């Protein structure tokens, strides 16, 4: 039985894991870098050890140092969270060697699913649909035609040696095949000195839909339904929801069964996620497997009523899963918004800094997973995520309204955040109707970045507040400091100061 857990992570996910451990009566050990002494996970844990300088490669990725702390603190298990060492096969292996339980899959499963080609082959063998296409090179028109007819249009012709869009052609009609093939090959030849190409199904209206799975060490595996993660910016998830507005119950059940098959195919144990790409017609294909807890796991917890971290600990302890597939139901609707310290109006530039004020969203149906506090300085070294805001409601429409309400309540000063941008998404027609793909942000950018109307009064009120803020600052500095000073002056704070 696991008696003490070292959490090899920081920020909200470190707290998330420690919360469940505490509820299980298991003491936790925090590790922290130079930049994180004042971080919440250090206070939250029962024990805390410094592991190195701010850059993660010297601290949160330093396997030797983390193992050393685990031994010193007599932690008999390590939870890696997400990011950092969570999908590092060598770390899983090292833990095993040192007699420390790695709360996650074994190294083989991580390796098998970490390599794209191996993962694809494993999935094909397991009967899980993958994006149709050729892995082998194609040089011949007849061969290309045959393949394309098998796959079905539209397809993408891509240079085998390629990258960066060179030697790439989208083919929508059969009569375009010949010219596209020729064009792609000559471009590939010119760019890479190799004119071989391969062909892949082009998904026109892609939806990113993933399935949460849990598998124990005794061969039992279940899925906990899907998460719709198509609201993305530069392949980064922005908002997730469950159930997916796309899926019918029949397709959901089929995808779930494939997700379980995928987990079994790599002898998986622990919590994992099977990512699929789906089109508007609910054709779906395996994309990859994440062999760890996901950022967006709370929406699943909310609609299924399962604490995933506790299940992970129980699995690591060698327990059998406490439920079967038929025991699990989706109830209501959950949405998660990721709150980042970034400036949506300046191309989402990170906005680290000191939190001056927080008003947290509260009340019915709101879950908030965060780690910052008033006076805390968000370090520049790590991910700019401040918190995750999760709402639940009986149905999707109410959940969207609740998220709007919660975002309106959520006030942070000191740093810029994505809150106004997320609030705008809740008002976008395509999101409200649930008819969106991964192109959502791009396709709706005029609406999302537009400035809402404001009458003259509301602008004048802003001017009055600005007057007050500036004169208060003036008052504060008049005695001791010149007025014009660098911004950092305003960050000085009694709080968070090293004593």
């Amino acid at each position: 039985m696991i008696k003490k857990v070292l959490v090899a992570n920081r920020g909200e996910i470190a707290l998330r894991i420690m919360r469940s451990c505490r509820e299980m009566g298991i003491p936790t050990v925090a590790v922290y870098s130079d930049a994180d002494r004042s971080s919440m996970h250090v206070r939250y844990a029962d024990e805390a050890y410094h592991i190195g300088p701010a850059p993660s490669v010297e601290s949160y990725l330093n396997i030797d140092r983390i193992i050393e702390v685990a031994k010193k603190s007599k932690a008999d298990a390590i939870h890696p969270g997400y990011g950092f060492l969570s999908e590092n096969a060598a770390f899983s292996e090292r833990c095993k060697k040192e007699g420390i339980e790695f709360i996650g899959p074994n190294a083989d499963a991580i390796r098998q699913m970490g390599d794209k080609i191996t993962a694809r082959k494993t999935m094909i063998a397991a009967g899980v649909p993958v994006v149709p296409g050729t892995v082998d090179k194609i040089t011949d028109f007849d061969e290309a035609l045959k393949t394309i007819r098998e796959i079905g249009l539209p397809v993408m012709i891509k240079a085998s040696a390629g990258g960066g869009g060179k030697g790439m052609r989208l083919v929508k009609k059969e009569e375009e095949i010949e010219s596209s093939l020729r064009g792609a090959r000559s471009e590939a030849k010119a760019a890479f000195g190799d004119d071989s190409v391969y062909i892949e199904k082009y998904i026109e209206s892609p939806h990113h839909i993933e399935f949460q799975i849990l598998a124990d060490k005794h061969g039992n595996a279940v899925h906990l339904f899907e998460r719709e993660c198509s609201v993305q910016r530069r392949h980064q998830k922005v908002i997730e929801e469950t159930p997916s507005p796309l899926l019918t119950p029949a397709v959901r059940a089929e995808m779930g069964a494939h997700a379980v098959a995928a987990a079994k195919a790599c002898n998986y144990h622990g919590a994992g996620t099977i990512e699929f790409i789906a089109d508007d017609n609910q054709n779906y294909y395996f994309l990859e497997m994440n062999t760890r807890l996901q950022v967006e796991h709370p929406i699943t917890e909310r609609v299924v009523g399962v604490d995933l971290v506790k299940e992970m600990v129980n699995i690591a302890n060698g327990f059998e899963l406490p439920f079967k597939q038929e025991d699990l139901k989706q109830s209501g609707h959950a949405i998660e918004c990721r709150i980042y310290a970034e400036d949506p109006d300046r191309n989402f530039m990170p906005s680290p800094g000191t939190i001056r004020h927080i008003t947290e969203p509260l009340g019915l149906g709101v879950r908030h997973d965060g780690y910052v506090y008033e006076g805390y300085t968000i370090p520049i070294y790590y991910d700019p995520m401040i918190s995750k805001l999760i709402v639940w409601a009986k149905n999707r429409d109410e959940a969207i309204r609740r998220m709007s309400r919660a975002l309106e309540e959520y006030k942070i000063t000191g740093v810029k955040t994505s809150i106004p941008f997320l609030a705008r998404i809740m008002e976008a027609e395509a999101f409200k109707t649930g008819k969106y793909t991964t192109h959502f942000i791009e396709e709706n950018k005029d609406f999302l970045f537009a400035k809402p109307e404001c009458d003259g009064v509301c602008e004048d009120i802003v001017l009055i507040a600005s007057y007050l803020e500036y004169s208060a600052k003036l008052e504060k500095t008049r005695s001791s400091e010149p007025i014009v000073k660098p911004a950092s002056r305003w960050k000085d704070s009694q709080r968070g100061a090293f004593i």
Partner: protein
Amino acid sequence: MSLEINIDGRNAVVKELGREGNLVTFQVDDEVYQVDALKLGEGIYSIIYKGRSYNLEMIDAGSPRHFTVNSFHNSYEVEVIDAQTRYRRSRSKGDASDSSNTIVSPMPGKIVKIPVKTGDDVEAGQTLIIVSAMKMESEFRAKSAGKVKSIHVAEGDTVDANKVLIVVE
């Protein structure tokens, strides 16, 4: 007291006419407002005007004179114009390139790479410096052609926001 404030391009004069407790009378350009104004936290204001409850969050935007002001549905860029600013503005009139080819760090971060050196001729669009913060790298490019006049940081340095990094002239 009276302040000149620029809000999203509009220059307005805000004048305090009187106050009694938290009831303050202001003139904004030609309009007179009596508001009930309260500061409730660091950068958090509650203003009641004719029964309407306005909530404003002031977020520092680089200097004590610059704010981003959020009111749930809107976001405004505000700059308080002081004598110094007016002077600077009048000097740089018609000489836009003067300040625009000065690279200033918009956020705290770490200098990853400086692919130019002092004295280099640079083209418009050429990368001058790469800054990393929060797992994201930002490239800063020359807005117009010129010569690198001075470099104020070195690779590996950690910098605060609003620090002058490179000047091109």
